[in-house]
């Protein structure tokens, strides 16, 4: 019988069945950060438990650390960072902390270090762990109680998900990137449309993406509610695991990690790549986006009173008028970073737009490379100079920074940000902050124009 990639991965990792339809699955590799792990370690201590296999875990500092300088910006963040280091020392777990050349955003660090390969099951106390699906690995986010469970047992209690297939076929139009593909998918499926599902992305537009683009797509699958995202392993994913620190030490198989011909999914969506335009979000949910040459929706565009109320609330929070042109929206800040779009390919795409241009007067533009390794690579290529010459603040340290504002990069009330990140929730980038999601090249275009702008108007436009 034909099996989906998802079912193959779950079957391969099943330790045993549990009563009531749960199962125990084996976790090949587990990643921790400083903010969702402390209570898991204290749970172990309270119960007098040891870590089952310390060598199968990695801890990185990324969520709360400052990126303007290496030293913690306050006592509270220092406490979290020191706490993680101490917990790792006590339990003999690898720790990539501040100043370590391997440090950075967890989901940028792991592929760089060659710690993801097709066929693996990877868990992390972070919702964007879906990123690893780009490699044909089953990655998913877990809560702190589950972090404790995986530390103590190397397993998780798991309930098999339904599967959804999203086909994106054809060639993308110029200026359209992986970020636009996934924002389109979120728009079509809806913010909670994939709750209870593992989503497999397929079709020529997905296969044509490089690994960085595939990671962007799988990363944001959680914004449609998917607990896991997958793309079939192929030569590209196999090539990308070579030449890294852990290459040669990890092998779970290769391109056989794909769905069988004719495998049945519970739901299917078909999207035509050519119909995707560069998108920007206008509201407070990632599914609220429009093409850059479009208009902010009006209440007439929505069917139900409930939808109308949601739209009005979002417009009110965002300080926008229904029906206004998206390109008339002026910005205060531009932010390039996050586990969605801070890899070297993203920085190159944004730099291509910025080359020879200047950030508009009054716009505060920040770029935080996804990892220390990525930053050094970019500096080696001279990309830092392009950003700095254009007027961007090129950050010397890496982390999540203004994506979720857990460090000192907190947007002010009412501040409007063009952002290469993944969530435009109320208060995400600071209390009252107004986030517009878009690709890194589009953030660069917006920074130059001082308003939301169409990347296609730039001669030397970036491609991912």
């Amino acid at each position, binding site marked *: 019988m034909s099996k989906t990639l998802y079912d193959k991965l779950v079957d391969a990792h099943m330790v045993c069945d549990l009563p009531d339809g749960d199962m125990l699955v*084996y976790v090949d590799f587990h990643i921790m950060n400083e903010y969702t792990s402390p209570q898991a370690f204290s749970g172990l201590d309270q119960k007098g438990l040891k870590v089952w296999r310390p060598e199968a875990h990695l801890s990185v500092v990324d969520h709360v650390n400052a990126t303007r300088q290496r030293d913690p910006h306050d006592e*509270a963040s220092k406490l979290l960072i020191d706490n993680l280091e101490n917990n790792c020392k006590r339990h003999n777990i690898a720790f990539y902390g501040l100043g370590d050349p391997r440090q950075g955003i967890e989901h940028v660090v792991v592929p760089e270090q060659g710690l993801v390969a097709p066929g693996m099951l990877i868990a992390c106390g972070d919702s964007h762990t879906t990123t690893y699906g780009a490699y044909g690995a089953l990655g998913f*986010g877990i809560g702190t*109680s589950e972090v404790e*469970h995986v530390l*103590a047992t190397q397993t998780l209690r798991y309930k098999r998900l339904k599967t959804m297939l999203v086909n994106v076929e054809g060639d993308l139009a110029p200026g359209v990137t992986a970020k636009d593909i996934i924002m389109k998918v979120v728009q079509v499926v809806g913010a909670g449309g994939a709750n209870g599902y593992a989503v497999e992305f397929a079709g020529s537009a997905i296969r044509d993406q490089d690994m960085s683009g595939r990671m962007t797509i799988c990363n944001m699958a959680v914004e449609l509610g998917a607990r896991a995202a997958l793309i079939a392993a192929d030569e590209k994913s196999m090539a990308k695991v070579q030449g890294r620190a852990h290459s040669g030490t990890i092998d779970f198989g290769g391109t056989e990690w794909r769905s069988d011909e004719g495998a049945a999914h519970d739901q299917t969506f078909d999207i035509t790549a050519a119909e995707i335009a560069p998108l920007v979000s206008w509201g407070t949910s990632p599914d609220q986006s429009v093409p850059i040459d479009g208009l902010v929706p009006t209440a007439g565009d929505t069917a139900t009173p409930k939808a109308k109320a949601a739209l009005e609330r979002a417009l009110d929070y965002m300080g926008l008028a229904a029906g206004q042109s998206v390109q008339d929206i002026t910005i205060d800040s531009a932010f390039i970073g996050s586990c969605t779009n801070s890899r070297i390919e993203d920085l190159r795409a944004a730099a291509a737009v910025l080359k020879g241009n200047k950030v508009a007067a009054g716009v505060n533009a920040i770029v935080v490379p996804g990892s220390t390794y990525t930053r050094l690579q970019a500096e080696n290529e001279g990309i830092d100079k392009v950003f700095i010459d254009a007027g961007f603040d090129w950050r010397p340290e890496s982390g999540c920074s203004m994506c979720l504002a857990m460090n000192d990069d907190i947007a002010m009330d009412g501040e409007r940000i063009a952002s290469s990140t993944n969530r435009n929730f109320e208060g995400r980038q600071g*209390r009252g902050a107004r986030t517009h999601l878009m690709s890194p090249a589009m953030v660069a275009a917006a920074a130059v124009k001082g308003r939301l702008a169409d990347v296609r108007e730039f001669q030397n436009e970036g491609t991912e």
Partner: protein
Amino acid sequence: MPDQVNGLMAAFPQPNVDTDVIMPKRFLITITREGLADGTLADLRFDEENNKRPEFVLNQPPWTEASILVVGDNFGCGSSREHAVWGLMQLGIRGVIGTGFAGIFYDNARKNGLALPIVSTRVRDDLLRIARDPEAGDCTIDITNRQITVGSQHHLFDMDDATRAALLEGRDDTLDSLKLAQSIRAYETKLTEKMRVNVIQ
């Protein structure tokens, strides 16, 4: 965990309430599970000067005493932070009734004994109407029989068997799974050398 949750329902119909809204990040800089009640839904409950927002349902009597929320679609989406569930519990919330929840939030709730009954849109909208009536009286979420009772109304709800059992038993999953250590070791014997990840320190 008792097999029932009893209490007043509050209507909180906003869709896509994410865990950033449930627990804003400024309350996350902590290494304990405690002290999160004040942070829960803080930007909706309090204004910039930390005064209560009178328009928010949990600031209005009788719903200041509510222990059950009736919520909009896709409640708990976004970040994996379990702090959102800890905070709701510390605020006195014991049940959240909705049409569907984000996966990580759902699992976090199960680990902490927060009941999340799933009902149809029609039933949820009915319950929202009832919850807005200050005279409605208490609601009962009967976990054993998967039934919500309020006044003369009874509604069956969805809850998967494993979540229901976990809530009723109130067990510690970590300790419970360690009883299966032998099965875990048996699985590990099948792993090749290169399937045993060994992270460089």
